[in-house]
């Protein structure tokens, strides 16, 4: 039963070379180091109290999408990984570690939807994070995910963006934007600004227009803002997902310290989910901060504020109906569902709710670092999220043409699902719609 996962083994050079270097002794030592040094009562209680009732199964999009295959159920993943590591006290072979890594890194998005199904309040996401932590310490990580973690270590950003390329990208976008907004700046290292705007590595790398749009919105709203010229600008954190918690801590520290050095009043972050999670949930805890040292506001909340205070007005509303994809890290993770609906109702003519929605929404299957595991695992995401395609199709049948997803990972994931299942839907960030349809008092007349 335990080897069932190898019926679907995916070849990954990172996982393979990782296990090739392992010995049973090293595995045992590392596993027990994590159990004795890093985990405690929380893991024991979760593991001991699970009564194996199977209620969590239908929570998981992988399970649902694979015709209710029990090996994809949350508790099923636990029994195939950490249960065995605990029961055997780490006395397992390298192949078993491959199995653990494939399940924990690519067949669980750490979305925590299963918590809503568990009468005992067991957090499978936490247990999968512990498995990832063990795999990281054993050097068994998917190659593409590890590449982003290496980038974090070398550059303090996710996409190998060099320091001069970063400022160059910002100046480039400023120059572009000046054709439309002659007075617009992307102010670098401004001291004491009200807003420190931070983005994720992929924005300067290949979604540069998002920086343009954010600049335009901040400029139009008359916000006193800045961006840092030095490392710390990237709020993303794939190290959190690879299990490299030491690096996760360093990333969060430099992010907050960069804002503190500029005496910024608060950090506003772009439309990203996992970066937000690493700020309020995991990175801060690793650093021993109960909360964060500088207030962090997600774009959803910030846009809601700009619209409520009239700093941004919409010239016209986006033609509806649209539907809303609720990203796990900002909705189930931070309860921004009402703000999100407020923003969508202000900028779109109408919206139709996906079912299930809000904190009960199905994950995009890209989050939790799964999309960052790269091409070898693309089909894991596609086959593993037919549930999302069904949800989107049901919305499309009610006349929806556009999906709003205020999270980069969700965007990547949904884009692939829409293409794979030929759903013919458009995908938008909130910023896309706000930028395109807001009243531009500071722009040149066309």
């Amino acid at each position: 039963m335990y080897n069932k996962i190898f019926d679907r083994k995916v070849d990954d050079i990172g996982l393979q070379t990782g296990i090739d270097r392992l010995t049973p002794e090293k595995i045992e030592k590392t596993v027990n180091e994590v159990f004795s040094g890093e985990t405690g009562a929380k893991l024991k209680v979760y593991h001991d109290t699970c009564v194996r009732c199977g209620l969590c199964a239908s929570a998981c999009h992988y399970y649902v999408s694979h015709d209710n295959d029990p090996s994809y159920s949350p508790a099923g993943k636990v029994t195939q990984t950490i249960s065995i590591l605990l029961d055997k006290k780490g006395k397992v072979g390298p192949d078993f570690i491959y199995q653990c890594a494939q399940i924990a890194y690519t067949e669980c998005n750490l979305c925590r939807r299963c918590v809503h199904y568990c009468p005992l309040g067991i957090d499978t996401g936490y247990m999968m994070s512990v498995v990832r932590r063990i795999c990281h310490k054993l050097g068994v990580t998917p190659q593409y995910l590890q590449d982003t973690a290496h980038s974090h270590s070398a550059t303090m950003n996710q996409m190998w963006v060099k320091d001069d390329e970063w400022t160059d990208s910002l100046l480039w976008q400023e120059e572009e934007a000046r054709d439309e907004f002659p007075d617009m700046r992307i102010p670098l290292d401004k001291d004491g600004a009200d807003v420190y705007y931070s983005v994720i590595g992929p924005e300067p790398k290949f979604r540069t227009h998002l920086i343009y749009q954010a600049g335009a919105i901040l400029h139009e709203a008359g916000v006193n803002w800045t961006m840092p010229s030095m490392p710390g600008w990237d709020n993303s954190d794939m190290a959190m997902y690879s299990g490299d918690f030491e690096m996760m801590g360093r990333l969060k520290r430099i992010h907050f310290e960069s804002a503190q050095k500029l005496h910024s009043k608060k950090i506003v972050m772009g439309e990203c989910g996992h970066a937000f999670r690493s700020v309020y949930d995991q990175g801060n805890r690793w650093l021993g901060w109960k909360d964060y040292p500088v207030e962090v506001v997600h774009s959803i909340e910030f846009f809601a504020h700009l619209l409520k205070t009239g700093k941004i007005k919409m010239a016209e509303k986006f033609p509806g109906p649209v539907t809303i994809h609720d990203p796990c890290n900002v909705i189930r993770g931070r309860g921004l569902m009402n703000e999100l609906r407020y923003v969508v109702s202000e900028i779109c003519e109408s919206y139709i709710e996906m079912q299930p929605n809000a904190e009960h929404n199905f994950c995009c299957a890209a989050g939790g670092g799964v999309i960052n595991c790269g091409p070898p695992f693309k089909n894991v995401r596609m086959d593993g999220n037919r549930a999302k395609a069904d949800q989107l199709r049901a919305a499309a049948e009610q006349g929806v043409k556009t999906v709003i997803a205020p999270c980069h990972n969700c965007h990547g994931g949904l884009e692939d699902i829409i293409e794979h299942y030929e759903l013919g839907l458009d995908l938008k960030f909130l910023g896309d719609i706000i930028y395109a349809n807001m009243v531009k008092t500071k722009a040149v007349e066309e």
Partner: protein
Amino acid sequence: MYNSIYDVVTGPLAWFGWAVFILGSLYRMASLYSEAKKKDVSSLAYVKASYGFNSIMHWITPFATLGWKSNPAMTVATFAFHICLLAVPVFLGAHIDLWYQWFGVSWVALPDTVADTMTVLVILAAAFFAYRRIAVKEVAFLTTWKDWMTLIIAVAPFLTGFLAYHQILNYQFMIVLHVITGVAWLVFIPFGRLSHAILGWYSRVYIGSEFQGVRHCNDW
């Protein structure tokens, strides 16, 4: 012979059962709490009584959570099972005498027919759980001998009690078996899967606090 065996099982053996149950439960709860204080500070810091209370209230209300709503049959079985499982041993007429004998306390008894019906409900719910362990694939996938043992320990006192009450098979044998299985029931609560009876509150209160406090979102 029967009387002396009966005296032993309801005397020293029962006290052994109570001792393991009470001391074992206290030990497990206290040791895990102190371990959490040492090693899970970054989780324990978010625990708040009101969040834990909200979470418990929702999860002990049938159909008040997504999990319960998604599995109606399991919801009915689980609530029937647990309510009867707790009420019958405490309020059964024949047990009231034992409460008085052991602890010198007494309270109102359930009418025997009600207690009998509730016992049947426990057995039927257990049969349903057993059916799920065999026939429902996501449950069968997770099931090991530990789960069968848990189910057998949980239902055995009810099965033997029912048979004894209705004087099916040998009454004297059955009543002794009933007490022994009842003691086993107590002894195993602090350990293994049955410990969800005492430790489930920890995970519930914590996840309630984490969801409502950190995630600003309900955990139901």
